[in-house]
């Protein structure tokens, strides 16, 4: 293989406030010995030849090379955590697997952990299926990249690599503008007060105390074009007028509520939902999480019907955007980078008594992975496997590819019983009013 040409790689990349939030989640991962804050994208191809250009780009991409040669420098008082680029010549290894199953992701890949101490924060796998079809799996620790970043990375790997190195600067976060310290502190108090109130215990969740065994499960539901159209129509009818997201989030909240009702533990649902901080329609950085959060608190009175839940979500979203909530929360996260991680952990977990969220939800429901827009048309299908963070140990994600919607449910197997999963599927049918096809992994 050719040696990597000399690029002017950034030597030091500071973690964003949102990255540090993931750093904090690592404490829970170590404490409970469960969960895996790793996102995976599965790109399906009709045959190996169709995958060759991407496989070649993976080996030659300077960005992948950068990911293989960084080390995390954890901060302390007034020293921000950062990635240090150590040009040690590490190159990426694509692990190859032969699957006996006709589809799906082998358990050994799903169970493989990537921690912040790993030599590389990104991994690639190639699966060969008996039908001659292949899949490339890109896995990375959430701390280095968010979901939108991964779409940009996939687009980068899908296209011919640019011949000049100037494109590299677009992949990294720009130097942030310095703001007024007084404004930062004022915002910090305002946001802290809002979150303490919003996340106050008790919060209903499906997690159960004492779960320490890691057992990763995923269920993927792929809706047809017609079903997707129907879901979008149903979303609109239920009050989600500008995209289906509020409706999909409401459906997930109802699913969890139904399980909690069965257990006799229904209560208020609390959800932090990622809000992409990048400007729309452009590229924006790939490295670091450029997100903030919008927080939803859904008491039982908001969970009496889907329409009511959607209305509450719309109202809470509008109120928070009006008050610059996501920007202010981002400022809080940025400030927290200067403090020791344990203090960050203590402050974040205190109001909710350790409940990070009732469940996790990724707001990629409006995000399209359309082959005609971002990716090469050789990619037949895209599956995004969201991270499994414990607590709560249950993540829902939605993605769209070529006008079809896919729902993924990732969970610790010892959190949901088979009977509860069946109930969940019955409700998915009822809420989305569609016929669903379930693929188990």
């Amino acid at each position, binding site marked *: 293989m050719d040696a990597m040409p000399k690029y002017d790689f950034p030597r030091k990349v500071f973690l964003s406030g949102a990255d540090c939030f993931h750093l904090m989640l690592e404490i829970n991962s170590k404490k409970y010995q469960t969960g895996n804050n790793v996102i995976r994208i599965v790109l399906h191809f009709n045959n190996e030849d169709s995958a060759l250009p991407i496989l070649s780009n993976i080996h030659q991409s300077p960005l992948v090379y950068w990911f293989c040669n960084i080390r995390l420098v954890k901060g302390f008082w007034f020293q921000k955590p950062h990635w240090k680029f150590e040009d040690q010549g590490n190159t990426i290894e694509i692990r190859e697997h032969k699957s006996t199953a006709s589809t799906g992701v082998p358990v050994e890949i799903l169970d493989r952990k990537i921690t912040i101490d790993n030599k590389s924060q990104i991994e690639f796998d190639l699966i060969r299926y008996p039908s001659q079809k292949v899949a490339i799996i890109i896995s990375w620790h959430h701390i280095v990249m968010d979901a939108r970043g991964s779409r940009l990375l996939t687009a980068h790997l899908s296209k011919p690599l640019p011949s000049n190195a100037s494109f590299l600067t677009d992949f990294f976060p720009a130097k942030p503008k310095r703001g007024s310290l007084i404004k930062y502190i004022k915002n910090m108090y305002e946001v802290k007060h809002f979150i303490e109130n919003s996340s106050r215990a008790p919060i209903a969740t499906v997690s159960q105390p004492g779960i320490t065994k890691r057992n990763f499960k995923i269920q993927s539901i792929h809706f047809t074009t017609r079903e997707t159209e129907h879901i979008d129509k149903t979303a*609109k009818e239920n009050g*989600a*007028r*500008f*995209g289906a*997201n*509020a409706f999909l989030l409401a459906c997930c909240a109802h699913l969890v509520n139904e399980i909690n009702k069965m257990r006799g533990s229904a209560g208020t649902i609390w959800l932090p939902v990622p*809000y*992409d901080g*990048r*400007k*729309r*329609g*452009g*590229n*924006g950085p790939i490295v670091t999480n450029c997100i903030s959060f*919008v927080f939803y608190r859904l008491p039982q009175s908001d969970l009496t019907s889907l329409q009511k839940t959607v209305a509450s979500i719309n109202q809470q*979203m*509008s109120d928070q*955007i*009006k008050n610059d909530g996501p920007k202010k929360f981002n400022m809080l996260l940025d400030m927290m980078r200067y403090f020791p991680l344990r203090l960050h952990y203590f402050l974040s977990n205190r109001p909710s008594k350790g409940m990070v969220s009732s469940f996790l939800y990724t707001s990629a429901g*409006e995000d399209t992975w359309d082959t005609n827009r971002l990716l090469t048309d050789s990619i037949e299908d895209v599956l995004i496997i969201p991270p499994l963070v414990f607590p709560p140990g249950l993540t829902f994600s939605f993605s769209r590819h070529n006008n079809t919607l896919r729902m993924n449910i990732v969970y610790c197997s010892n959190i949901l019983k088979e009977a509860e999963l069946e109930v969940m599927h019955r409700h998915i049918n009822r809420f989305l009013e569609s016929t669903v096809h379930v693929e188990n992994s």
Partner: protein
Amino acid sequence: MDTKTIESDIILFLKSNILAEEVVITPTSVLRDLGVDSFSIVEIILFIERKYDRIVPEHQLLPENFTSIRSIASLVSQLEKIQIG
């Protein structure tokens, strides 16, 4: 206020607050195709309320009123007429 001025105001708002520098936008561009999502639509509604001192009534919060700059400008213009009338 004429529709052209409203269109220019909204384009300026989108360019400085929502869309990336490289995005080319015209009054007839489909906002969804440019990457405008539901969060951004809420920001546009709040901008209209601040800039023109008009509340967009519940029954006007329809996707067809927010497909392009032109449709939004037309909505704002209608709201002004209702207020004046």
